[in-house]
């Protein structure tokens, strides 16, 4: 919760006056908060250059007069919408990368329909991502591409990279990506194979619904939502705070259902088998060993990540076979890593600087 910055230097009488003014502003803006619709998000100009089923590929309009040769493709986690990369002007990783001179493409996921319940890990990593990379190559005219994967998008990027060692990948950036799934804390506990019947869930539901996924995230921090609302009320006078709060709230509520087969494989092979970590994972008939990844790799992880705890993401660099590899541990949590104040100050510049040196 932000404190009353600026008013702290004032005498007590003035501080009380300021607080009264804020209370009035809270009442007026509170009404607006209740009756107005969610803020617009994902406003940076873009084109959809490819779409198929659950898959969307965006190309953002360049903002620099001269761009780096190698295009950048961001891969969103399969549970959420990609506009967290582009929440609002000034709070947008996409906008930042565009201004820094990158040609930016983003993979977004729509809700999979019941007919897409059979989509599996191999569809995402051996069909969707390679197809998008091909489209990016055609669109940019460049033979190679840098991948940036967030959370489960990072896992998909890792599997792609390990399964396409002869592919056109130039650099790989992972953002808070789980590798050692046995360190996934409560998520691992709740999905203990002794109690958690993944087959029954998938066979009954087909597509694992939003409420199921959202409940899992919410239960990790049950008091967070209420506390955030109280903080939003406290900062109701502050338009920037309220806008940011509402954008994040909208994003977290727009959780995406998961294709059943994909959910089943994630549970069996990653959560229970921990095969990404042990190197035993097989996808589309190929061995997925992170040691086979030799392109430059950067991993940005959050110190206080409650969804992907540090011990789950930390082993990534030691598992990949690359010699050019870099890890950045930042303060903040799972979401603030990519769109919070720490992201603006540290993560985006760190990723941009690292990629810039490797994108010519």
């Amino acid at each position, binding site marked *: 919760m932000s404190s009353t910055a600026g008013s702290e230097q004032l005498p007590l009488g003035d501080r009380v006056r300021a*607080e009264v003014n804020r209370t009035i502003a809270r009442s007026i803006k509170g009404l607006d908060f209740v009756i107005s619709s969610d803020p617009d998000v994902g406003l940076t100009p873009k084109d959809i250059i490819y779409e198929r089923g659950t898959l969307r590929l965006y190309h953002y309009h360049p903002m*620099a007069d*001269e761009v780096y040769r190698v295009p950048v493709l961001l891969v969103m986690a399969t549970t959420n919408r990609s506009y967290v990369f582009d929440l609002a002007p000034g709070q947008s990783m996409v906008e930042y990368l565009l201004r820094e001179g990158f040609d930016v493409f983003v993979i977004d996921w729509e809700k999979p329909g*019941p*007919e897409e319940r059979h989509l599996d890990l191999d569809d995402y990593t051996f069909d969707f991502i390679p197809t998008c990379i091909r489209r990016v190559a055609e669109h940019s*005219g460049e033979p190679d591409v840098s991948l940036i994967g967030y959370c489960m998008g990072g896992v998909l990027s890792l599997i792609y990279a390990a399964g396409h060692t002869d592919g056109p990948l130039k650099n790989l950036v992972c953002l808070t990506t789980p590798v050692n799934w046995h360190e996934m804390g*409560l998520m691992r506990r709740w999905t203990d194979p002794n109690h*958690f019947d993944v087959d*029954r869930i998938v066979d009954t539901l087909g597509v694992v619904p939003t409420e199921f996924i959202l409940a899992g995230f919410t239960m*990790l921090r049950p008091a967070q939502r209420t506390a955030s609302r109280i903080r939003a009320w406290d900062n109701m006078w502050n338009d920037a705070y309220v806008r940011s709060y509402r954008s994040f709230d909208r994003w977290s509520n727009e959780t995406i259902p998961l294709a059943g087969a994909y959910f089943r494989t994630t549970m069996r092979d990653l959560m229970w088998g921990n095969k990404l970590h042990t190197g035993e994972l097989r996808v589309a008939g190929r061995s997925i060993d992170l040691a086979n990844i030799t392109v430059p790799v950067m991993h940005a992880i959050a110190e206080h990540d409650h969804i992907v705890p540090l011990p789950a993401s930390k082993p990534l660099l030691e598992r990949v076979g690359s010699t050019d590899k870099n890890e950045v541990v930042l303060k903040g949590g799972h979401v603030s890593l990519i769109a919070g104040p720490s992201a603006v100050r540290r993560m985006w510049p760190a990723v941009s600087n690292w990629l810039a040196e490797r994108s010519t």
Partner: protein
Amino acid sequence: MSKQDASNDPLDSLRKLVDDWEKRIDGVANKVMGTDGFSQAMNQTQKLGLRMQQGFQDAMAAHLKNINMPSRGDVTRLAESVQALNQRMARMELLLEDVLRNTGAGTPTARSGPPRTRQPPSQRKGEPT
């Protein structure tokens, strides 16, 4: 501002209270939800819900069959056929592009957009970094 001044703001105490409350609730909840018993109870409840849902789905499908209407499963199977066709089309599109490229007929045209010649700050001579 000294710490004593800060403590004069009544809302600061309220803010601290909210922070402490959140930490305490999350801490207690995580302890409880981290037990084997909780995990077992949660999954039992879930199984019960799924069983009920399956029963409802089966009853609804039987009812729709009786009145000669397609069930959700029938519609999904139809959509799956369309999706399979879509996928086949996408694969054919890629193959066709490969053929055109290999025969020279699909040579890409000159691309618009800014030149792709940007250099990293460390290599830009004469420019402030």
